[in-house]
């Protein structure tokens, strides 16, 4: 498959595809981060995660329309407002869902899976009723359009760089929150030993709710960033949910570093293969490889030793 390309071409292809992979990596990572918190830390399978992401995307879409109509002067900065709103909207919905649904099911993980799937169907239909079945896209502010010419053969789009920057910031923020803050210590304490954490005075129910809300909020930001690189429809979230779960499982649940590493390897493999093979074949090979590795090493790449 490499035969027809010269070495210089190949390196340019790898660089370009590598960069395309980095954008994919950013979106995957943002989605997987929220899921890693919810699934990795709490052991809850949230099948509606994709719909929380899409909620963020729709909030961004509404924001862009709002700024276009009423505040065209501030349009260049709308994205930051949209991201904050997306976080709040998805986070609030997440906390509501935790309170009304998830907390009754902590002891029955498989049932949580079914219930959140039901929730995802309801959310999808709500989006379809409110926003219509057609995909919507946002208007990018002018400073995000265009690309940077790195060399003669390599150019990278600015919106991609922006998404990557957002991802880096969020990832660092989550890492700091989980490993450097009091809240993070509480979350980890609850994960490692719920009864003991309660005994030393941590309000485990509140921690659960906030953790779930945080995970959903990050999904909202992921959706917001997603609008930069793709359009949004009511069922877009469902397309990514399996990939995202695989990323979290592949990385090893409860390991932030593992999630990053697995999102990176999966997205890079997929986008590099995509250039040489058809998109579907690339996806099949990537997913098969992941499932194959998981069959041999079910605990994932990185594991946290927890006494169960």
């Amino acid at each position, binding site marked *: 498959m490499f035969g027809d390309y010269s070495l210089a071409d190949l390196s340019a292809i790898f660089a370009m595809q590598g960069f395309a992979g980095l954008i994919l990596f950013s979106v995957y990572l943002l989605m997987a981060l929220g899921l890693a918190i919810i699934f990795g830390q709490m052991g809850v399978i949230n099948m509606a995660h994709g719909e929380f992401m899409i909620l963020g995307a729709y909030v961004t879409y509404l924001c862009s329309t709002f700024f276009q109509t009423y505040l065209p002067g501030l349009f260049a900065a709308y994205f930051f407002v949209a991201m904050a709103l997306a976080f709040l909207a998805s986070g609030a919905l997440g906390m509501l869902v935790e309170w009304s*649904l998830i907390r009754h099911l902590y002891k*029955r993980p498989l049932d949580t899976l*079914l219930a959140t799937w*039901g929730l995802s*169907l*309801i959310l999808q239909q709500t989006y379809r009723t409110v926003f219509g079945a057609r995909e919507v896209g946002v208007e990018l502010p002018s400073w995000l359009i265009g690309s940077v010419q790195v060399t003669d053969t390599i150019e990278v789009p600015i919106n991609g760089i922006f998404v990557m920057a957002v991802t880096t910031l969020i990832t660092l923020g989550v890492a700091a929150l989980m490993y450097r803050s009091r809240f993070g210590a509480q979350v980890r304490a609850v994960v490692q030993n719920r009864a003991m954490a309660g005994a030393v005075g941590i309000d485990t129910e509140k921690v659960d709710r906030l953790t779930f809300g945080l995970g959903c909020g990050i999904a909202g930001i992921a959706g917001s960033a997603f609008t930069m690189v793709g359009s949004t429809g009511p069922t877009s979230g*469902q397309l990514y949910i*399996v990939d995202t779960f695989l990323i979290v499982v592949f990385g090893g649940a409860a390991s932030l570093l593992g999630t990053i590493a697995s999102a990176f390897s999966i997205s890079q493999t997929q986008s590099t293969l995509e250039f040489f093979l058809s998109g579907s074949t690339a996806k099949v090979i990537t997913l098969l490889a992941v*499932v194959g590795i998981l*069959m041999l090493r079910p605990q994932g790449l990185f594991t946290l030793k927890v006494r169960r």
Partner: protein
Amino acid sequence: MEHTPMAHRPAAVAAGVHDNPFMKPMEWVSLALLAAVILVVLPILLDAFRLNLVGKYLTYAFVALGLVICWGFGGILSLGQGCFFGLGGYCMAMYLKLEASSVENTKIQSTPGIPDFMDWNQITELPWIWKPFQSLPLTLFLVVALPAFFAFVIGTAMFRRRVGGTYFAIITQAIAAILTILIVGQQGYTGGINGITDLRTLNGWDIRTDSAHNILYFVNGGLLIGCILFAQYVKKSKLGRILVAMRDKEDRVRFSGYQVASFKTFAFCMAAVFAAIGGAMFTLQVGFMSPSFVGIVPSIEMVIYAAVGGRLSLFGAVWGTLLVNWAKTSFSESFPELWLFGLGALFIAVVLAFPNGLAGIYRTYVEPRLTRKVKALAPAEARALPHGTPAE
């Protein structure tokens, strides 16, 4: 899953072989009722079109039945049953398609004698994976053997490494996704997103006529009842008890010296074979097979059939399938946008409010009253009814 203290049902533990008949009287009644509805009442009441529709629903009941064994008794939730349904369906469809693509039927193609979609995709020779499906006996064998083998490989690989619960669910889901992408992507070999359509005859017998649909409906109903009886046999056997024990306290079973992985693999393979039989019957009755029955969405939808009927009840699974599909058809006809709300609410309600589905409602509310009535009528017979139904 739920942990039932064994002390609550000493009858089940202490019962010897004599107190443990193949089916309790009430279960014989349920079976008779189900058989009567499927094989007598519905064929009398419904016109040919509706009956064919019910036949289609009943093919999903095979999947739900498999899930009762695998998920309800074994505690293994597979979200990839669509995979096996699809494998069975595709095996049958490939055979039917080859028969429909005889040389004289396809003489306008540039390569006569191969399925039309292959010709459209510039394939000039029958691919090797299609070769076995030229023979009917081999096809029927593969309908069962291929999914069983597939499930065996997945099951062995996963259960040996003690992967279970949610991880297993996610990985089976991923497998369903992979298979769908593969089928859609390899258009020339699989018919792509449209699936395998325009199926005509089974070994020379036209399956498109009303009379053929009728016969296939009864074959399907008979097979379903056969599968229920087999599942009941497994449920009653020692194997069935080990499955339940494993679901409730896996480590105890392992420490008692049982090889847990093999039992789990068996339950998973059995569910896969049931699903595949359903898939093959689906293809025969509906006349096509497409990737839309393979992926994640249909696979999870099939889980809800079993959940609505009652994940611990073999008969409940069939009733649940019929009920959900009937609701789906009637809602989608009149209020299409309401259906997804309804289905979503059903998922949530069945998990939160009725974890044992219809069968659970029946056992808690209807059965005690019935038993009281029966007791009043025939006191001697009522005492023979075993206590402690496994309703958790």
